[in-house]
């Protein structure tokens, strides 16, 4: 009912606008074309400068309103670099933005039509054009310079002592694998994947290196201040490991493993205190369109201290042990639905998905 009401109001508003528009056209004809043009010109010239002033106020207000909500300090060393680059870029482009926008609207206002003014015939000026070719070129060289300096440091090789975790995306969840005590990931082959037999990654049990591999769902544990190298895979379509607090991101491509590395700076606990938010978690968002559940494909990263990590790992059973020492075959989906934080995750999204099944 309210929808129909809304539509009626809209229609009425439209009809009124139309009548005014038609009437003003007749008035314009009566007043004479020239006078009409001059009047319209004055109104629009004024609106130009008004738009500039209101726009600049709006930019300021918008910034005041939202600057506190954009995630705060970066939680990784690479994130700091990226934030630095962001500030450099905002500074340079900001200057250009204000100069050009102010000139544009100011000129539009100042040089609006007047009977007395004659337009100045000014077809070109090589010196001016050279200046505004060279200056942007220099500014961009600075940006490219900083950008590539950081880019190569971020994408360069991970430190040798970096911890390794394999991340695999599937529709619509994340699976994490730790190499175990031998620090070697066992071999795997995608045709061995069997969710019913608790082999989500298709590990080859013939390979002894796979026997101590830890495979967990939903929550990845990392050690604070220890570099971590993620080896990223996908089981089906392209996903993307998006870590907005760490400012990192890398696609998960089926058939082509990718990597990224970074060093977490704060534990989850520290972040909770820092942000005064007891619910805080580092979230992994899927940033590449991957199907109907894309918007709910969430993972959690817990950054903990070395001791806490060792305790956690001691409690987890390797995938091999789970399959072969628990005599009974594991129930389907055991690994990704029984871990503690899962239940809480995204209940609205889960509901949405359930409705459409």
């Amino acid at each position, binding site marked *: 009912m309210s929808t129909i009401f809304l539509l009626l109001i809209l229609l009425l508003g439209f009809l009124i606008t139309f009548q005014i528009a038609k009437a003003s056209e007749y008035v314009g004809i009566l007043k004479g074309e020239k006078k009409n043009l001059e009047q319209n010109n004055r109104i629009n010239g004024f609106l130009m400068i008004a738009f500039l002033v209101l726009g600049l106020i*709006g930019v300021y207000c918008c910034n005041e309103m939202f600057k506190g909500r954009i995630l705060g300090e970066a939680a990784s060393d690479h994130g700091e670099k990226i934030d630095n680059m962001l500030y450099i870029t905002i500074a340079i482009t900001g200057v250009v933005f204000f100069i050009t926008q102010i000139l544009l609207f100011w000129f539009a206002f100042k040089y609006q039509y007047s009977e007395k003014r004659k337009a100045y015939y000014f077809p070109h000026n090589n010196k001016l054009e050279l200046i505004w070719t060279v200056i942007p070129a220099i500014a961009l060289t600075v940006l490219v310079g900083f950008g590539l300096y950081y880019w190569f440091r*971020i994408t360069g090789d991970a430190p040798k002592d970096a911890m390794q975790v394999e991340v695999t995306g599937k529709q619509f969840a994340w699976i994490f694998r730790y190499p175990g005590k031998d620090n070697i990931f066992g071999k795997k082959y995608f045709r061995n994947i069997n969710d019913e037999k608790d082999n989500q990654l298709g590990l080859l049990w013939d390979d002894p290196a796979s026997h101590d591999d830890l495979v967990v769902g939903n929550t990845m544990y990392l050690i604070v201040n220890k570099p971590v190298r993620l080896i990223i895979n996908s089981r089906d379509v392209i996903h993307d490991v998006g870590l907005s607090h760490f400012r990192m991101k890398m696609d998960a491509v089926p058939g082509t493993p990718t990597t990224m590395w970074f060093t977490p700076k704060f534990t989850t606990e520290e972040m909770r205190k820092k942000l005064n938010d007891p619910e805080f978690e580092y979230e992994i968002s899927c940033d590449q369109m991957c199907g*109907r559940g894309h918007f709910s494909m969430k993972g959690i990263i817990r950054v903990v201290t070395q001791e806490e990590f060792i305790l956690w790992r001691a409690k987890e059973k390797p995938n091999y042990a789970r399959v072969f020492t628990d005599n009974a075959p594991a129930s389907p989906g055991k690994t990704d639905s029984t871990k503690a934080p899962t239940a809480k995750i995204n209940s609205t999204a889960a509901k949405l998905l359930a409705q459409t099944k």
Partner: protein
Amino acid sequence: MSNEATLHGHAEVGTSHEVHHDEHGMHHHKETFITKYVFSQDHKMICKQFLITGMIWAILGGLMSVLFRLQLGYPDSTFPWLEDVLGKWAKGGKIQPEAYYALVTMHGTVLVFFVLTGGLSGTFANYLIPLQIGARDMASPFLNMLSYWFFWMASVVILSSLFIETGPASGGWTVYPPLSALGDANLGSKAGMDFWIIGMALFVVSSLLGGLNYITTILNMRTKGMSMTRLPLTIWALFFTAVLGVLSFPVLLSGLILLLFDRHAGTSFYLSDIFLTSTRQALPNEGGSAILFQHLFWFLGHPEVYIIILPAMGIVSEVMAVNSRKPIFGYMAMIGSLFAIAILAFLVWAHHMFVTGLNPFLGSVFVLLTLLIAVPSAIKVFNWITTIWRGNIRFTASMLFAIGFVSLFISGGLTGIFLGNSTLDIHLHDTLFVVAHFHIVMGVSAFFGMFCGIYHWFPKMFGRYLNNTMSYIHFWVTFAGAYLIFWPMHYEGLAGMPRRYLDYSGWHSFNQFGGLNRFISTVAMIVFAVQLMFVFNFFYSIFKGRKVTSQNPWGANTLEWSTPIRPGHGNWPGEIPEVHRWAYDYGKDGREFIPQTEPISANESKH
């Protein structure tokens, strides 16, 4: 010499068709309704066909965005009327994830290809090229007609895909495989994706037929005296646009054909190591590369954004000069920067792929080339600003849109410098920052270029004026709305909010922007309503608008204003006028404007 040869050519065409032009030369001997309005070979009619088809698509595409903005702004509410309209796609009055993704995908496809490529280039290239270079029609009016009808067929195929049981394509307008290749991974990748590929193939054919025609016409059929450096900037822009299209669309087509093979012929171009959870089966494909498709797609995809924006730049340059009563500043620099942009357009595609695992060194090369584009873009902006400096500006609706275009192009262009820098792209890639960036710089800007052109040439197209008051309301609401929608969206992107999410409430990191999303959705709906008012103004004015009484209402120099108020097929009764000067002699020697057809007098100053 070539000029004279073409002139002879025209004379023959003119006589063999026995065209009789009178002052209101709409009447043509053998014209029937079919040949005049349907299978017309007159470039002016084909332009109108493209324009009106484009407008229908724009309304549909805009409506899709209103629907998904409804979901984004009000993720917790239900709208029972949605179920009445969309049926199972909005069960319980809530847009389902599949429907949401289908809407997003089709919104992108429709606006990028069918409105801002077909609708924009198709309209203005068809209209302006023959009229502004002084030709009676395109080099091949027949191919030109086919170009429209292929566009029409493509439209029909894409439109019908909206109605099939499994829905239209829904893997994003970039249709990355494997998602788009596997029906079991995504509902929209069943029949909908085949429709999408067939529709796009037809679209590519249309675009090639049109593009080749535009290039040939501009190179061969200019009237006597119209050297390349006397062409209005609109023609230069449309020329580079056509070249970009001809060189890049075939690459998209080849990429799509490989995708079609992967879908139906069991090949593994893009597929490897896939296990589908929904069927619990591993696929036999091995050795393909999903990234290969992205290279092929973006080899078109990046030039595509310039295919969209260059015509808008050309239109804005022309309209700014006319309404500032001043020559465009730095004509040669404007052509040079168009040329530079056209070349660089082919060398930057991988900046869409910085986080795909691309070799970091290769990434760095693309950073350099991408940021290089900012130089010609900056030249253009400064030249536009200098064009209005010390002008005598008339704020016609088209001039307002031209100024709005420059403002938006600056804002959107500058955020491109963020995204083109791979370091920042790591954080910003596939967030709402990207959405805000490209909507401002190629979505809204290109629309502003299009509105600018429609308002400027509407009197020439239909012999009547659009209503001024409605035009002004249209401009100011759209302009303010565009900034209100997309400016705050950058902040959501800086917070890392991923794009293509239909509900952020389940995310601890991203749920702080609920209020802002509602605000954006509301503004988007208002702006959409105002576009409907424009459409009304457009059709109302075709029949009831104030009549044009003078041949050259804007006091412009270019050739189209030397034709009769309602030109017939063939454009000029009698001889095609000869051109003696460039298109931008405004305010020279104390005269307000000097048309291109006027010979240079002995005591005229040189520039």
